[in-house]
């Protein structure tokens, strides 16, 4: 017999067993409840208040657990998901290549992207190499549920929520549609396998001997 069965059965046999005589008298419990409230009242009234933001580490007798937010702030945990940002490359353009992975993963469908192509003659090396970029990248943060799946989905480390910043209050609905310019913020990031670090454009690199065998693993 499982636990839940025995639980319900014992109650159906003797429904009054949950409360004994003292509990059914109520008055002692009422008085005790008031005593508890008064104890809290006096303790909080009489003892000094400790406003350490780590509530569990507060030292004094006072039981007040309040953290007064704008002045005091609890440090965010390391995994905190803040405002979205588009990670810039070293040259200030977004790392994003408009692969739509974030928009695909987004359960609230709050990301909208339109893709464009960098011209083969672009003056920027990285742009010449990666070809594709978002002409429009919008996050509707009112729709966003801050699940972070877009960050997980991003194959290019181009979208992060590491800002530890909340979505700021706005007066207009349209101000919550974050466009590319607003999203592009924070420290530029580069990775060793970024394609533009290995070639100058999307053309074939000029080898002295194209046919000379470059084995896989060797730098051509």
């Amino acid at each position, binding site marked *: 017999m499982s636990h839940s069965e025995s639980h319900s059965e014992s109650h159906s046999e003797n429904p009054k067993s949950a409360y004994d005589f003292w509990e059914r008298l109520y008055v002692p419990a009422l008085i005790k409840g008031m005593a508890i409230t008064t104890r809290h009242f006096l303790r909080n009234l009489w003892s000094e208040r400790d406003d350490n933001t780590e509530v569990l580490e507060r030292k004094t007798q006072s039981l007040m657990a309040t953290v007064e937010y704008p002045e005091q702030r609890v440090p965010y945990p390391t995994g905190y998901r803040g405002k979205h940002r588009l990670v810039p490359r070293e040259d200030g353009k977004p790392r994003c290549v408009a692969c739509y992975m974030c*928009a695909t993963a987004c359960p609230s469908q709050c990301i909208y992207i339109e893709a464009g192509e960098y011209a083969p003659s672009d003056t920027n090396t990285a742009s010449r190499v990666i070809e*594709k970029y978002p002409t429009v990248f919008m996050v509707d943060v009112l729709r966003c549920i801050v699940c972070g799946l877009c960050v997980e989905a991003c*194959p290019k480390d181009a979208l992060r929520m590491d800002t530890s910043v909340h979505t700021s209050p706005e007066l207009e609905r349209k101000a*919550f549609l974050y466009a590319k310019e607003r999203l592009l913020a924070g420290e530029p990031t580069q990775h060793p396998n970024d394609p533009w670090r290995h070639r100058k454009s999307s053309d074939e690199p000029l080898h002295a001997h*194209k046919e000379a065998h*470059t084995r896989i693993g060797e730098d051509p």
Partner: protein
Amino acid sequence: MNDSSPKTPSPPTPVPPPAPPKTPPPPKNPGMVTLSVDDKEVVVKPGTSLIVAAHQVGVKIPHYCYHPRLSLSANCRMCMVEASNAPKLVPACQATVAEGQVVKTDTPKVKAQQRAVLEFLLLNHPVDCPICDQAGECKLQDYYVRYDFKPSRLWGPKVQKNKRKVLGPTVLMDQERCILCTRCVRFMKEVAKEPQLGIFGRGSHERVDVFPGAKLDSNYSGNLVELCPVGALLNRDFRFKARAWFLSAAPSVCTACSRGCNVFADYMNQDCFRFRPRENAAVNQSWMCDVGRKSYRWAGENRALHTLSHGKPVSVDEALNRAASLLQKAQGSIGVLASPAASNEDLMAALAFARDVLKVNMVFVSGRPDGAADKLLMMADKNPNRKGLEYIALALGIELKPFETFTPSAFQAVWVLGGEMPESDIVMAARLKTVPTVVQAQHASEWAHECQVLLPVASHLETECSMTQHEGLLQRCRQAFPPKGDSAPHWQWVMRLANLLGARMDWSSAKDVFSTIAPRIPEFANFDWEGQAPSKQSRPGLPLPAASDGRPPAYRQFACPSAKGCSP
């Protein structure tokens, strides 16, 4: 792309119905070969390849270079299977069946081979799926996930090739992504018969390219994009426009010429993004021409979306009232121009209306002017439904007259069904200026814009309809998305006009129109309108259709977030 279609046996060896099973050996079925694939018995004609035989019993063998409509090359080594009559693995696309053969496609040996082939193909593959248009319908992706799914053991740089080589007006090539299956080379040589592509170089530096100084300018180069199992050959027109998994596919028919190639219209929301050929052995096999491929734009560009009167927007009811009174006044002297680009249902409704309500017994045939033709698919007649118009007019007793004999001044009013005209806009404007005109047109051409009443018409992607191609074959188009703006199919406008003019026409769908009028037309009488329609859900060729997870097609609202006063 259509190699995995279940209805597509190799054309030289069409599959007969399975012979009745008989008892003991030697040839188990005389004249046929009996073998077992993964413990399932298969009976096929001698000379059938293993891949086709396996397909018959639902065993799918992965492959890159094999295509049922191309010659064998057996170079990708992905389809290697274990056969009882060979000491080593055999390529299933090339090996033919043998009596009593036992074929295994999922032994550890086969799996190790598949994994090894994928690792080899991925050695120099750039894995730039984020910027690759093929992502989502890429065989390399699918097979990697299904047959390999191991992290790469490679470190260090890969061979670098040209990632953005413009091969011609339609196709752009990324040589790094190429897995050298040579499907494209074989297609150009065998189907298009314009051998413009070749394999150059050796070893890791081998690549597909055009011959020096030449261009890939064949009218069939667009097929290479579908043929290419990876993202090496890309359509310049579709490039970076949308991701494959956002698109839903509606089975439809190309309306660029009277061939009536079967296509999938890939659409999202209310926009079509591309046409892909749909397998039909009787019409277009697996191919279509580049002109037709680009005709998807006609359904979206320069559309008339509002009811107009003298170029000014009026309400739908107002426009219909004006049109009705105009036709009422000119009763008995109305010139009717019918376009052979309109669908059967539209033409049925229109000609019935012309005969019974407008009391007209001859109709002038407008339509697009003739153009270039080629040996393979493209026809000179650019109107998809000329045959249908002829059938319907004949059955309804209406005389068809060529456009050249049409003189607007001979009539008190002109009713134009379909805006496609053999003459240029300027000429048409001058000719129709003299007489009150009611136009039902899909596009806001200049003359249509200036006429008395313009009723916007839905494109063939926005309605259920049927077309009759040049050989008299009746083909169905499925509705992809609802009509844009005020537009509606011709038959709806005709019905509303007729009801305003006192006749009773009561149809609720294109099917109603067809089933009301088609019995009078001998060519259409036996057509099962609903039964012949290709299923809307089917999406062969794409392993990850947008609706495969049970969502309705195009459910995803991939649209720009909007708020009052905001447009990106």
